[in-house]
């Protein structure tokens, strides 16, 4: 899974910890997601999309 989390997070001037707090996961999970090591569940993907102020999941996540 390819993600645009890093780019979108930086555009919102958010830290990894801040994003982690909003979506209620650990900072390590955000790091894993940004590096594409972990594929989130649908619910977590929704939460991240919402936290990054995007409308669609496809705006944040993309299948390789």
């Amino acid at each position, binding site marked *: 899974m390819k993600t645009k989390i890093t780019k979108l997070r930086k555009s919102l001037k958010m830290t990894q910890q801040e994003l982690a707090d909003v979506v*209620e*996961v650990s900072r390590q*999970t955000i790091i*894993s997601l940004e590096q594409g090591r*972990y594929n989130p569940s649908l619910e977590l993907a929704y939460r991240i999309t919402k936290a990054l102020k995007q409308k669609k999941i496809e705006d944040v996540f993309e299948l390789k």
Partner: protein
Amino acid sequence: MTVSQKIWTKKSLAYKYLFSAGFILFGLILNFFKIGIGHFAGFNSVGSWVIYAGFLIAIIATIIYKRKKKKIIDERMEKIGYHASRLTVAIFFISLFILMIVDGIYQITIRYYLFISYIICFYLIIYFIAYKILERKY
């Protein structure tokens, strides 16, 4: 997604104290009726060991409650934990098989409680290592 933020309340602490009190009471009963008297895991009786375990539970519970640190367990951690458990179970069966063979060659004469203690510590270490390795993967 399952997100749980484990925060110990006074109620959960009370349950832990009740549990440790049960241990202590059980140990006292064993000592009173002189059941399991003799050397046991460095203690003079099984009862004394159970009392010690009870106090240990109470101390650990108090320390965890006092820390009051929010602990987030997210879906990634659960996934890693699940895979680490599976790996530990696989190693458990393999190690049992190896132990059977070793026992056939050199008879294991170690005391039962010591053997179980070592084996539990071994599996805890295996789980910890498996978790740390899988943490890098996911």
